[in-house]
């Protein structure tokens, strides 16, 4: 059963009279529980494809079905709701809120739920434990290393127990050792927690951790 089903998707950006075709009739399937890597040169459309899968952008044409929902047909509010329930996003630059502690950052997506404060705190603590940062719960992002920040960001991505994790170059801003640990963690989430992961990366060593690799070039899949 496919968790992500992208069918004949086109994404065209318009700048004045000029049209820029970023994705051109692309189709892709990612099975439930898969760990897929999207690779390709800059400008090939891999981040755009990831944004479409994550529901933060909509295709110009075609269908993007994620966890059974055709995100291309959702309005802004529907997309927001879809993201909060189904998708955990991991950014290259972590994008933690600097004024919030690790726990508060992880708790942020739970503010959209009906959970009590105690329940939110408990779930945030569990997520931090999963990523191995239980002892850094009260630390602010500035008090953490890059690798630790990314692990907090991963905890934030998994705290709502989403079906799909999308990662946009999660190791792109890390040293080799930290990158290795992050990839280990992602593998654990995929293997032990059955999370479907779609990861954009430039790094062949990172892509090797994935079960499947997809190469994009000029808006189409090469293989």
């Amino acid at each position, binding site marked *: 059963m496919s968790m992500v089903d992208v069918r004949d998707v086109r994404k065209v950006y318009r700048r004045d009279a000029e049209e820029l075709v970023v994705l051109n009739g692309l189709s892709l399937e990612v099975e439930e529980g898969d760990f897929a890597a999207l690779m390709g040169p800059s400008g090939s459309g891999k981040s755009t494809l990831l944004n479409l899968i994550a529901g933060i952008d909509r295709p110009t044409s075609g269908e993007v079905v994620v966890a059974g929902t055709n995100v291309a047909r959702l309005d802004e509010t529907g997309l927001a709701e879809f993201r*909060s329930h189904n998708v955990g996003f991991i950014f290259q630059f972590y994008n933690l809120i*600097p004024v919030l502690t690790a726990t508060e950052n992880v708790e942020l997506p739970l503010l959209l739920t009906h959970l009590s404060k105690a329940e939110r705190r408990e779930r945030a603590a569990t997520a931090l434990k999963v990523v191995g940062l239980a002892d850094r719960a009260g630390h602010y992002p500035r008090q953490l290393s890059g690798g630790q920040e990314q692990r907090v960001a991963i905890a934030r991505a998994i705290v709502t127990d989403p079906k799909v994790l999308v990662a946009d170059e999660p190791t792109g801003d890390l040293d080799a050792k930290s990158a290795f640990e992050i990839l280990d963690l992602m593998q654990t989430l995929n293997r032990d927690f059955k999370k479907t992961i779609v990861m954009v990366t430039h790094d062949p060593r990172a892509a090797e951790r994935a079960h499947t690799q997809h190469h994009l070039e000029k808006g189409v899949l090469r293989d």
Partner: protein
Amino acid sequence: MKFLPYLLKHLRRNWFRTGLTVLAMAVCIFLFCTLQSVLAEIGALLDSTSAKRLVTRNSVSIVFDVPIAYGARIQSVPGVERVAMTNWFGGSLPAKKEGKADEGDSSSTTDWSNFFPNMAVELEPFFAMYPEFQMPPDQYQALLQDQRGSAIGRKLANKFGWKIGDTFYLESFIPPHRKADGPFEFVVRAIFDTDPVKYPGTDTNLMLFSRKYLYEATGRRLQAGTYYVEIRDPGKAGEVSAAIDALFENSDAQTRTETEKAFAASFVAMAGNLALLLNGIGVAVTFTILLVIANTMSIAVRERRTEIAVLKTLGFTSRQVMGLVVAESVLIGVMGGALGIGAAQGMMWLLSHTPGIQDALAGIGLSELNLRPLVAGLGFANSVFLGFVAGFVPALGAYRARITDMLRTV
């Protein structure tokens, strides 16, 4: 409410900027409350006047007297019911409440901080035309029978703890109203009240005594300060006023007769068109603060474009993000508003208790300045409104912004 800690954390992010913005809002609300309180007190003062009463004074200025002989002639004008001659006494308590004239230099022992409005009036016609001032008949008779007797308003009596039979001394700052042998001695013979429902705005922070006492004690040379004139038909106030002034058109001391309300308004307006001035200042300050806060919020939102993108990515709707930005701005408004209202309350108290300023206010009939609940409420609503408006435009930007565009500008 679950978002409140999140909002407060953001406000603490740049506490210096937040503090300055809150302070700017506080100054705005402080000015609004202070100015509107003054205007409200002036409004109450004017509302407490009667349309049946006119005031005749020297046309040159209130500081010049009018001859005593005018009283009988004004009484003869058709439509006039009664006339009462009055003089603003300008007395203050000596430093020693029970002090005597022979206890040293009287002028140096006068405590001008205890200034309160006091007038020498022709008692019978004056009280007859002021039904607002109510006192027991026996006290009124006692007042008429004792030349040193004084009628004290309830608020004033409470202020100094005076009761019937108490003696006190007053020294005037107006030279013609001073005696060679020291301060005037007065006995409290009557304490008058008012009905706040029937006569709203009537101030009882006032002392009245017989003009005859002042006249005789100052060598019988005293002229009339003003004439209070009661007319039979308020609808003919203009006609009667013109008739009174026409009587003295060719005399040395020409008169100006106007309704009591116009007289009170002109008294207040000696400092210029206060209402226009105060409202103008208020509007200018409010608009300036609106721009300041809107600018602050715009900067805050621009600095947090990535965070807004993250919130949206996590599943916050555009409306929720917009709500957070507006709520943050309103929170600044609320904090500034509360601070401003507190400061205004303090200023009201200070103005009402500072010697000199208190005297100046009492001189124009504002015996006491209070921050009225309505003004405080309006001030608070103003702060919330300003916060909302200032945050709305940047919030709208956050609402419309696309996640991909905001992440791209990282």
